[in-house]
């Protein structure tokens, strides 16, 4: 998926730990890890809003589009 979550960089810039962010946002560390490692399939607007509020950033700072090489599928298929 060419959508990347730049949570790592933002946490580093704000000198904030994942645990602290999880506490502030009200999302479990496990879910934030999924988001951080790029395994998430979707993000709710409410989660995005909470993250932006706590990290004092815009959605565009957190979510970026990085197209891969031509021919690479844009969306992973779900397992059946």
């Amino acid at each position, binding site marked *: 998926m060419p959508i990347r979550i730049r949570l790592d960089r933002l946490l580093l810039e704000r000198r904030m730990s994942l645990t602290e962010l999880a506490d502030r946002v009200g*999302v479990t560390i496990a879910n*934030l890890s999924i988001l951080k490692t790029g*395994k998430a399939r979707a*993000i709710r607007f409410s*989660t995005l809003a909470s993250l932006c509020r706590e990290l004092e950033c815009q959605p565009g700072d957190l979510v970026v589009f990085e197209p891969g090489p031509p021919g690479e599928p844009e969306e992973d298929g779900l397992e*059946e």
Partner: protein
Amino acid sequence: MRALGPGSVSSFLKVILDVVHWILLFSAAAASVGIVVVLLLSFKPELLGGAINIGGVHIKGAWLGPIAAATLLAGDLYLAGALVIVGRLRRIFQTLIIGDPFHPDNVRRLRMIGAALAVLELGRYAFAGVVRLFAHDLGLTKMASGGGVNLTTWFSVLVIVVLAEVFREGARLRGEAELTI
């Protein structure tokens, strides 16, 4: 009254399915033992009582043993099919009890139930065909009348196939929801 979860209707139905499963299992085991016994006794038909009654037809003589064994075998195969269906239903209901109806495995289980139902119905036609084949020679004309197409069964198979697709979509959405933060 809740439909899903512990102590719900699903839970009650699961208990019934468990009982039916064990009844089917014992019946299948009894039929299997019966096949062996009948085949052994077929060497001495008089030990089988001289005649048996299948579907209102009295069979006696040298064919007594093989016909009884074949009938028991057909019954055993039918029970095996029923066991497959009930077994899968039990597992589906187990997921309903734990509140996870869209478990990905349920799609495969539903497809298996549909396939088993179709195979059982086809098996019924095959059995009726075999009976018809030998009915005249063996005087089983009364039994040869079965084997008609059961539209209810085929309708059920189609409904199960559609339900399996519904569950596949549900499982897909569940997978997406799990990775939605």
